[in-house]
């Protein structure tokens, strides 16, 4: 039960599609316009989108906020097609309206001026890290990002990240950047970072957290548990923490790995 009075007010609205940009056959960026300012949205927060005309995608789909454009009251979502819901959303046209509940969840802890941060994203898990890199750079943080994926098709939006961070790439098959898992990448062998942020497949985040903890570096991850309500009411999305079951949708999705019972 957490009415977050210090967080931006959550809203549920019909938003207009401004852009639906295809990256490759698996990924796209959906930009939607809000009737009000989007300046209160924080990095790490997510939205719940209602998919129309389907009996299979009955629940809203949780998607991270990829970028925010306050100049035109919009935000962007970076989405990977994995099933019917994400497929139907990829077919939205400019001018269509889409029912979105936002902004949900808690933000990352932002490092301050002069600090050095490493961001590690796997596949579509890079989504919440773009807005985070932007905010970190604004704060005067030295931002480094390691983008990981199965192959070169899963390394996306590199140009966009280059605006805010030094880039490192690793792929499982070696088709781009260094070959291997993100935790085997050279940037992770010399860990002089003050903070590590990560989002991606569960095993990847666990491996990153383990390395960070061994070196006593603070580490925050953004979890992607299955959700139903997205607002802390149904208790479906829980993760085990040092203080019992907590909801990923309201107590997270961002957690410090110290509180997660991952062992």
């Amino acid at each position, binding site marked *: 039960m957490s009415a977050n009075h210090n967080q931006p007010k959550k809203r549920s609205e019909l938003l207009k599609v401004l852009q639906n940009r295809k990256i490759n056959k698996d990924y796209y960026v959906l930009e939607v316009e809000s009737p009000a300012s989007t300046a209160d949205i924080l990095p790490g927060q997510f939205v719940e989108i209602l998919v129309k005309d389907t009996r299979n995608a009955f*629940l809203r789909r949780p998607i991270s906020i990829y970028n925010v454009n306050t100049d035109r009251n919009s935000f962007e979502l970076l989405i990977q097609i994995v099933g019917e819901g994400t497929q139907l959303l990829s077919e939205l046209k400019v001018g269509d309206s889409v029912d979105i509940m936002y902004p949900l969840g808690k933000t990352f802890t932002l490092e301050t001026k002069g600090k050095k941060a490493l961001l590690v994203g796997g596949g579509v898990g890079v989504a919440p890290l773009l807005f985070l890199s932007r905010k970190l750079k604004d704060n005067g943080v030295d931002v480094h990002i390691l983008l990981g994926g199965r192959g070169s098709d899963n390394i996306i939006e590199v140009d966009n990240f280059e605006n805010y961070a030094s880039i490192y790439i690793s792929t499982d098959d070696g088709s781009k950047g260094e070959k291997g898992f993100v935790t085997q990448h050279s940037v992770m062998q010399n860990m002089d970072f003050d903070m590590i942020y990560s989002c991606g497949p569960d095993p990847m985040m666990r491996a990153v957290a383990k390395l960070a903890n061994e070196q006593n570096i603070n580490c925050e991850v953004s979890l992607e548990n299955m959700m139903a309500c997205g607002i*802390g009411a*149904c208790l*479906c*999305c*829980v993760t085990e923490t040092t203080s*019992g*079951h907590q909801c990923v949708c*309201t107590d997270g999705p961002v957690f410090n790995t110290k509180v997660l019972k991952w062992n």
Partner: protein
Amino acid sequence: MNTSIKIGGLDLKNPVMTASGTFGYGPEFEDFIDINRLGGIVVKGTTLNHREGNAYPRMAETPSGMLNAVGLQNKGVAQFCNDIYPNIKHYNTNILVNVSGSTVDEYVETARMINDLEHIPGIELNISCPNVKEGGMAFGTSCPSAVAVTHAVREVYKKTMIVKLSPNVTNIAEIAKAVESVGADGVSLINTMLAMAINAETRKSVLSTITGGLSGPAIKPIALRMVWQVAQEVKIPIVGMGGIMNATDAIEFLLAGASAIR
């Protein structure tokens, strides 16, 4: 139009309530709707002691519905009385507490504590939760046990008591009649249907508990049939629920014989 109705001593300004477990405690929805416009809200299943609930994954989406196996995660009735109640008692609607337990004594103790809360005009006795190992649904699937728990709680609980029935029975009307005979002011139905989802790739059940409770539009036809069957047999009001997504669905429940809906 006057849409108010009465269940026991409880006046609902309209027949629309929220279902337990799907609406949290209320504050979760404050940003979205005016809670005071609802006829009533039924807060999350409450037990005598703190319960962590079942392990993740405890939810699976299925066509036109979902399975859940939350397992009555809650911090216990004392925490409800001390920490949650003060924050919700100002709502200008009827707040009902959904009461559950593993033994008759647990139900009785929990109901006794809630009886003392001035702004809680009623309870919903949950004898139909399919997601706990002991008690829960077991009480709602046979007449003698449903009668035992309803009767025992009636002795200590003086305000409106609605009994929530399980659809996982062969004759729901019989159970409804049995709880009516020992003092239930109303019945609510249906709780979730015991069900299962399997991932063919991993060859395993999707839920940590293997089985869970199905809710949503998928169960609406079953809920309607049961409301109709119960309406033929009892005189007390029926609160209908199960897959209500819009006004048409709600009207269907009222036509089947429900007095109020969720």
